[in-house]
C-alpha cells in the first residue's frame, strides 16, 4: 500500500498519454493521410478540359450551353 497513489498515478498518466497519442495517430493515419492522398491522386491525372466537356455535354453550365 506504500506509495500506492504515486504508483497508480504514474501508471495511469502514462496510460492516458499513450491512449491520447494512440487516438491522434489513429485519426492521422485513418482520416488525415488518406484524405491528403485522395486529393493528390485526384489531381495527379486530372484532365480539366475533359471534365469541362462532360459538364458542357450534360448541359449544366450557364456559360457553355451544349450545342
Amino acid at each position, binding site marked *: 500500500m506504500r506509495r500506492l497513489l504515486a504508483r497508480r498515478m504514474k501508471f495511469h498518466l502514462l496510460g492516458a498519454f499513450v*491512449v491520447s497519442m494512440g487516438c491522434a495517430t489513429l485519426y492521422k493515419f485513418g482520416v488525415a493521410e488518406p484524405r491528403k492522398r485522395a486529393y493528390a491522386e485526384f489531381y495527379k491525372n486530372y484532365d480539366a478540359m475533359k471534365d469541362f466537356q462532360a459538364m458542357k455535354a450534360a448541359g449544366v453550365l450557364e*456559360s457553355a450551353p451544349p450545342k
Partner: protein
Amino acid sequence: MADYSQFGFQDASSPVMEELVEFHDHALMVALAICSLVLYLLTMMLTEKLSSSTVDAQEIELVWTILPAIVLILLALPSLQILYMMDEVNEPDLTLKAIGHQWYWTYEYTDLKDLTFDSYMVPTTDLPLGHFRLLEVDHRVIVPMESPVRVIVTADDVLHSWAVPSLGVKTDAIPGRLNQTSFTATRPGIFYGQCSEICGANHSFMPIVVESTTLADFENWSSLMSS
C-alpha cells in the same frame, strides 16, 4: 454543394481550401488527443482507480503548464502560415464586385466592359427538375478556371456575407466598406454558397453560385451579357 447527410467540408476547389481542410484535420487531431486524455483520466477518477489526494505536485504542475504551451504552438504555426498565405498579393486576372442587397446579390465586372447584373434565387415553383432547391440563381458568377480572381464585397443596406465553402471564401458585406477576398478555382464546375450574415426575412434565400469555366467561354459569356 453539401449533401443532406454530410458531416465534413465540401470537396476543396481552391488551393486555400485544400490547406484549410488539412489544417482542420490537424486541429481536430489535437482536439481528439486532448479529449481522449481527459476522458481517460475522468474514467479513472470515477472508477476510483485514481484520486487527486496529493500534497505536493510540483512535477505535474510543470508538465501541465509546458504541454499546453507546446500544443498551442503546434496549432498556431500552421494557422498563421495559412492566414498569411490567404493575404498574399497574387496579381488577380479578374476583379469583380459583389454587392449585397435585401435579398439578392449584384455583381459588377468592370475590368474591361461595363457588365453589371443582379443574381436572384430561383423560386422553388420555377425550379427545373434536377436543380437544387434554394441554391440555384438566375444569373451565376462566371469566372475563368485556374485564374486568380479578386472579389470586392460590400453591401447596399444591411450586413450580408458572401460565402462559397468549396472555394474557401467567406467575406462580410458591410455597407460603406469594401472588403477584399480572392480565390483560384482549380477545376471547372459549379460552386454553391449562401448568404452568411443574418439580413432579414429572406436571409436564407439569397444564394451565391460561382461557375468556373474556360477562358474562351468566359469571354463569350461576358460579351453576351454586356450587349
